[in-house]
């Protein structure tokens, strides 16, 4: 087996709040292979964004209390801020949900896209700008030469997200972290951006971590998926298997609760009862147990580890680890 490009090992990130310590990321481990697109799904507050920010060491005011983030074997959590600045942008790029607020409104778009190569490769203005224009064209911005002279407010939401992607790609990083890149966009624009991310993955071979709450986006984009709930990974495996035979009750019930466009008949949805837990005051044992239809006595007592369940998947669930199949009305 080839060595993974990026390995996250038992990562813990906490936030100190007035109400107590929030364990936003509570022992997360996964790996990203070269050239793949890995999906990280979960609802708001599940820790998916904080995991991404922790990889980039941008988790402040949160604190990484333990764990390692290995990029080609090098531990990012131990790097100095100066070394980390070399990694950000050059080796790992990140694009955010809201392209409206992540571009600087007072600089021309071309200049912003050119900045990473000037910084990381030491290119002069002319060369950096030429490559920026080139990249803007590659991400599908029409008339890139003149558009590079425009300011962010002159771009639509979808076009701004393209600019963000171009900015991330100028230094040809090996890892791209896309945090809800299409959530703020309309569906037809979402389709354009997802197609662009597929294209980027093919053309540049950039390994991508795609963070989303949308199970449909994961189904169409990712070969492997990690499902998060209340700061922990509850299930991981090939997308095909996780969607066909989920091994964690959270994944199982989430998939059944969403209306599907291709549904033949109107059937009442089967919601998950209750609501995601308060991270300051997590339930004992498995955090999902108060909402779980399969819970047994042990679930309220002990936290299950993420272990192999079935052929290809891993799940953190006492019930499926004991061999029970998830099924029900």
């Amino acid at each position, binding site marked *: 087996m080839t060595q993974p490009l990026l390995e996250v090992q038992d990562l813990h990130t906490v936030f100190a709040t007035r109400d107590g310590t929030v364990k936003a990321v509570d022992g997360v481990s996964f790996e990203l292979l070269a050239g793949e697109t890995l999906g990280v799904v979960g609802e708001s507050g599940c820790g998916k964004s904080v995991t991404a920010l922790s990889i980039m060491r941008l988790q402040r005011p949160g604190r990484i209390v333990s764990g390692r983030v290995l990029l080609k074997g090098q531990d990012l959590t131990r790097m100095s801020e100066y070394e980390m600045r070399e990694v950000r942008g050059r080796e790992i790029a990140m694009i955010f949900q809201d392209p409206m607020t992540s571009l600087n409104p007072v600089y021309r778009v071309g200049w912003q896209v050119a900045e990473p190569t000037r910084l990381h490769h030491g290119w002069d203005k002319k060369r950096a700008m030429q490559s920026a224009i080139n990249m803007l064209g590659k991400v599908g911005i029409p008339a890139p030469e003149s558009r590079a002279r425009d300011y962010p407010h002159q771009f639509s939401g979808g076009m701004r997200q393209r600019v963000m992607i171009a900015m991330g790609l100028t230094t040809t990083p090996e890892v791209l972290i896309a945090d809800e890149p299409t959530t703020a966009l309309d569906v*037809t624009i979402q389709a354009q951006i997802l197609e662009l991310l597929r294209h980027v993955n093919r053309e540049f071979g950039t390994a991508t971590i795609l963070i989303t709450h949308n199970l*449909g986006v994961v189904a169409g984009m990712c070969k492997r998926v990690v499902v998060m709930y209340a700061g922990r990974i509850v299930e991981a495996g090939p997308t095909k298997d996780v969607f066909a035979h989920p091994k964690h009750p959270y994944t199982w019930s*989430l998939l059944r609760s969403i209306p599907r466009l291709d549904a033949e008949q109107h059937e009442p949805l089967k*919601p998950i009862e209750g*609501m995601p837990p308060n991270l300051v005051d997590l339930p004992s044992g498995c955090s999902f147990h108060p909402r779980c239809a399969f819970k047994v006595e042990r679930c309220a007592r002990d936290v299950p580890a993420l272990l192999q369940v079935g052929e290809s998947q891993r799940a953190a669930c006492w019930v499926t680890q004991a061999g029970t199949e998830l099924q029900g009305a």
Partner: protein
Amino acid sequence: MPELAAKPLKRAWTTAEPLVSVSDLKVWFPVSSGVMQRTTGHVHAVDGVDLEIKAGETVGLVGESGCGKSTLGRAVIRLLEPTGGTVSFKGEEITHIRGEHLRALRRDMAMIFQDPYASLDPRQTVGDIIGEPIDVHRLAKGKQRQERIRELLRVVGMNPRYADRYPHEFSGGQRQRIGIARALAVEPTFIICDEPISALDVSIQAQIINLLEALQAKFKLTYLFIAHDLSVVKHISNRVAVMYLGKIMEVAPGRQLYQRPRHPYTGSLLSAIPIPDPTIELQRERMILQGDVASPVNPPSGCRFRTRCPRAREHCAEEVPPLESYGAEHKAACFYPLD
């Protein structure tokens, strides 16, 4: 503008007729510029919409941001004054009614908003939020009012004791339940749901959808369900209307729309929606639209979708395609429809 005084219904309305009937409705907003702030143009937010909603049905209204779906909803319940066209409710024209007459109409209609964090006054208790429409319409007082508030909370699946608490003490899903209770307070027949689940977590959305469906059956409600998520709209609606740049492009029962879309915009909208099934996603043909939505200030001539339409020809720029019938309940506005 004709000034109408409060008066009873002109004639008896029967449920065989549409509950709501919108005809050639237009809502334009002025755009001003320059030092003098002179009106230099108009945003054609809603630009000639015809739509009928039958009693007891749910009509879904989908479209991308800025297509005018929310504006249409607000004009239908008279939160916005239409620029042109008419709106009828229970067989009576309500386009320009005022005063007591409008107030009486407000008892028959309600609205549920998208953002449960912004649509509830943080300084009011839940009881006062739900009680406000009861007070405005003088529906109950004192003990009776308190009992009614508690009953409404029970109806939306919340503990009646929560009446004394404040909105910030609740999660998004619970706040949306409070918003629904407030809408039900006037015992309306018609409710506009404007993106009621878009701001909620995935695992909470199904709870609210099921609640809305249960309430519809219980109180014989009619819904106009506005959302951008076609999977949700198709699930909850009897018929779905697809809007683009202020106009309705296609109307059909949900499943028919999915199986056989006629308008190229509907086709591309459907193919853009991800289906949570990797096997299906792998095989799907994608019809990815080029470019962005045109400006509603200066909409394209003829068909508004033509600037992004893969099937557009010269004719599409010259004439506005009318909504034509494709079977009983299926209409589409396209000169070169999909097969």
